[in-house]
């Protein structure tokens, strides 16, 4: 009898203990009551849930990017170069450019990545070299010789701060300081830094949608501007389609072939104000004035991004570069001129109004994307 009791007890212990071990091993899923995990609160009841910075299906963020940008043939029609009093110093002329090309590199790495705060810092370098069909000389408009000999480049630093307020609301801040100009091996003084920023308040009502509204200080169309901005990211229910937009800077419709292959159609505004620095040929007559090329362009494009291997992605974009502005501005007393798209009267006239025809372009980059 005692033996039977021991057998029964042993069997009962083994049977009763099985679920305990099952929790630490690969129990057959049929044996698990999944409903046990449905209604669970935080162990620390003071903890809160916060809106995630990303939504489902969004294209991966680029941590490090190295690329090359190439624009095909187009012409630059340089306007008359004038003094502030309207006196013409140089007549205008048009010249053919075979190509415009340069390296574009940047990185954007997380400094703080927590549930209630994400902070990233980045840097970028863009170079643009102008390859004229015929090398400009001193007899041509000085704009051509300056671009041909010096090109344009931008280097800068940036920061992005994402601060969720609760499980749906968030604040997004982006800021950058860029050194843009005709400078070469020696950088320009820090006084020529251009500061851009955007601040948005937004909501993330579902896992597949986030939107926000805010205000930006930007040079994207060449001139300094203060404009409203709208963030809108959305992924369709089946994850195949999406929208990634920070209007008006860029808007893209996304087709997700799979999470490692994505195609985008849309546009981006690109631009900056480039300081004409040091001894640019032909512009000596205006050395007592600060001159800047206000370059703004719209790139209508198709982009294919795909994983080469694991987190190494390639991005191939092709499209049409539409010139918005390429005028030389004069900063009479130093600070930037705010024209509000021409709505503010009494601002100084441009030193030179230029026109560019529009070429096709391609941009290829290799990127290390965020996990």
């Amino acid at each position, binding site marked *: *009898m*005692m033996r039977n*009791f021991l057998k*029964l*007890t042993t069997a*009962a*212990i083994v049977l*009763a*203990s099985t*679920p*305990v071990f099952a*929790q*630490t*091993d*690969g129990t057959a*899923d049929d044996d*698990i*009551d*999944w*409903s*046990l*995990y*449905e209604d*669970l*609160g*935080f*162990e*620390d009841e003071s*903890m809160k*849930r*916060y809106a*995630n910075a990303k939504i*489902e*299906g969004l294209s*991966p963020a680029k*941590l*490090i990017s190295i690329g090359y940008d190439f624009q095909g043939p187009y012409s630059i029609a340089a306007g008359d170069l004038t003094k502030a009093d309207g006196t013409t110093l140089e007549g205008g002329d048009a010249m053919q450019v075979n190509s415009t090309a340069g390296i574009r590199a940047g990185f954007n*790495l*997380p400094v703080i*990545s*927590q*549930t209630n705060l994400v902070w990233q810092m980045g840097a970028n370098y863009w170079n643009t070299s102008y390859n004229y069909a015929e090398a400009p000389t001193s007899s041509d408009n000085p704009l051509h010789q300056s671009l041909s000999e010096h090109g344009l480049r931008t280097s800068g630093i940036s920061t992005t701060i994402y601060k969720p307020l609760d*499980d749906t609301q968030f604040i997004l801040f982006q800021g950058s300081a860029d050194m843009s100009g005709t400078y070469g091996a020696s950088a320009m003084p820090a006084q020529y830094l251009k500061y851009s920023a955007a601040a948005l308040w937004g909501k993330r009502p579902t*896992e597949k949608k986030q939107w926000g509204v805010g205000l930006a200080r930007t040079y994207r169309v060449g001139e300094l501007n203060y404009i409203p901005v709208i963030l809108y990211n959305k992924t369709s*229910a*089946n994850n195949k389609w999406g929208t990634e937009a920070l209007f008006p800077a860029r808007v893209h419709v996304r087709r997700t072939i*799979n*999470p*490692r292959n994505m195609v985008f159609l849309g546009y981006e505004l690109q631009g900056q104000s480039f300081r004409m620095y040091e001894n640019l040929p032909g512009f000596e007559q205006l050395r007592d004035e600060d001159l800047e090329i206000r370059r703004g362009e719209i790139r209508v494009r198709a982009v294919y991004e795909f994983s080469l291997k*694991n*987190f190494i992605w390639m991005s191939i974009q092709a499209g049409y570069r539409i010139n918005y502005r390429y005028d030389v501005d004069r900063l009479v007393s130093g600070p930037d001129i705010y024209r509000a798209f021409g709505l503010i009267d009494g601002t100084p006239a441009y030193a030179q109004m230029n026109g560019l025809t529009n070429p096709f372009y391609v941009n290829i980059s290799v990127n*290390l994307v*965020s*996990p």
Partner: protein
Amino acid sequence: MLRKLTFLAVSAVIAFGTLSFDLPQQSEDPGDRLIGIWEPSNGRSRIKIDRIGNKYYGRVVWLIESNDADGNPRTDINNPNPDLRNVPLRGFRMCKDFVYQGDDQWSEGTLYDPNNGSTYQGTITMRDMNTLDMRGYIGVEAIGRTDVWKRLKMPSRKKK
């Protein structure tokens, strides 16, 4: 007498089994503080971390969207291995092979993200008993992303 003993023994066993399910596992191994149910920052899933041998593993026990658009249980459709794309996400072991290193850190493991089918090297740092920093990275830890996971209360057995 024997019947009473049997009844007491069976009652004790049942009680033991129930208690062991309802309460966090008590262990003197400091690495076992990782054992529990955790919620990633996006709140879309819950992961139960257990120990097998001297390593720690986490499996998905809850998904905010347990079914796909067609009403079928979600599977690992983004897995780079086509043969594994029919594996149900619920029950999927997404954290593997973590080993306790001391100083509230577990490493040598991998993290799998079913949203894109990527597997990362991972380290886990316990900020406090109820908060984990789950860092997935590529090659070097500097290039990665940290997600904060929060401990959930252990479930109680539902009364039938």
